[in-house]
């Protein structure tokens, strides 16, 4: 069994430190938003979690493509790791969004394109896990999971695009904002710094968890291999 790489330990520490700083910045460094008040502070981790959820989704699709080409089990483990992390963060994204939406939009939930897309993403993630659970043969499981991740990753932007043609009330803070969106605001430099730092932190969290999860998958494989060997 290989021991834990030093780089991973470093990333572990860096991630924890970054998260502490980011939390501090969100609550104390970033100024209070004039209209929405403190609830706006949810925004920093909300977007960052969504970003990680999307990274997971893209990661699963890319791992799927590589798996289908190379047929190497390693990429199946990578795909599964990406999906598991993605699920958690999309979930955080949806929950934090709801917390923000309650006072600002006066509702926990609305079928806005972004909310719809996040939900569909979550459902596809769950379907992916159910598909895996239903198949015993590990090679077939890996192939089907890869195919589903690819089809799913194509469908999600199409859903977003379709839903987008309906009018949206979701604020678009990054890029050109729609003035009609409820809860839109302009970021001050300090807000922008906090926001960027949050993104960086969550990217580190993603990399760290991803690496740990892949290592875990490979260890599970090694144990399975030893088990098969002793059975002979």
């Amino acid at each position: 069994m290989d021991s834990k790489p030093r780089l991973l330990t470093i990333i572990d520490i860096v991630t924890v430190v970054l998260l502490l700083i980011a939390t501090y910045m969100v609550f104390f460094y970033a100024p209070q938003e004039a209209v929405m008040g403190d609830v706006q502070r949810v925004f920093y981790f909300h977007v960052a979690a969504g970003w990680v959820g999307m990274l997971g989704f893209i990661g699963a699709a890319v791992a799927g493509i590589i798996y289908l080409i190379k047929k190497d089990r390693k990429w199946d483990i990578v795909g599964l790791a990406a999906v598991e992390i993605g699920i958690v963060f999309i979930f955080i994204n949806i929950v934090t969004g709801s917390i923000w939406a309650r006072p600002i939009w006066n509702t926990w939930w609305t079928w806005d394109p972004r909310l719809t897309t996040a939900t569909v993403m979550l459902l596809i993630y769950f379907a992916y896990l159910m598909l895996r659970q239903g198949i015993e043969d590990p090679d077939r499981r890996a192939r089907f999971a890869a195919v589903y991740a690819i089809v799913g990753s194509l469908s999600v932007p199409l859903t977003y695009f379709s839903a987008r043609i309906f009018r949206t009330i979701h604020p678009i803070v990054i890029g050109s904002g729609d003035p009609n969106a409820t809860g839109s605001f302009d970021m001050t430099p300090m807000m922008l710094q906090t926001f960027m730092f949050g993104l960086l932190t969550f990217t580190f969290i993603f990399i760290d968890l991803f690496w740990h999860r892949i290592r875990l998958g490979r260890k599970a494989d090694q144990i399975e291999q030893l088990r098969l060997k002793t059975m002979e």
Partner: protein
Amino acid sequence: MIKVRKLVKRFGLKTVLRGMDFHADQGEFVALLGPNGAGKTTFLRILASLSRPSMGRVNIAGYRLPDQASAVRRRLGVVSHQPLLYGDLTAEENLRFYGRMYGVRDLQSRVAEVLELVGLTPRRRDLVRTYSRGMQQRLAIGRAVLHDPDVMLFDEPHTGLDQDASAMLDTVLREVAARGRTVVMTSHDLARAADLASRFDVISRGVITASVKRDEIEPNNLLAFYRQALQVA
């Protein structure tokens, strides 16, 4: 006709075939004997181009698997323990369907000929659903020879058949195996295999542990040979 070198097949982490070597000359009828889980079906599925080898070389009728699968499939007839037939179609329709899939010429007369061969002409207009297991299995052989293959693979063809049906199936199998075709058949029924095959290979834990020609062994000694071959592994 069939050449297999150092064939390895893994399912996930489990290795089923471990560097298997195998060959069959034209006209040979090889019975692959072995206990359940030895890798017989896996091996046959690889020969049938339904499963890809993890490692090793497979050559059938001069074509490589898996990259020349289409050329191999043209020369291959497969009878498995499942009939691979559609219950809601008649025998004639089933054969016509598979004939089109293979692009068989003069399909009409060929279908009639094959039905005659497997002794199902009187019932050709009946739905396969209403057939007995033995009749289904004979029709399955008809489906497999429709395109006049050079190599035939039988995967436990006697599964679920009673004595009479098995005997009838054997007649058809013998008929089909003649004419210089190469046949590989898996079986765990020594007696049946002894009747049909011209060579016996024992497969155990994913390799072939022994091989003997029919004229080199007394039929009575076959069981002892089989037991001994299993001990080797």
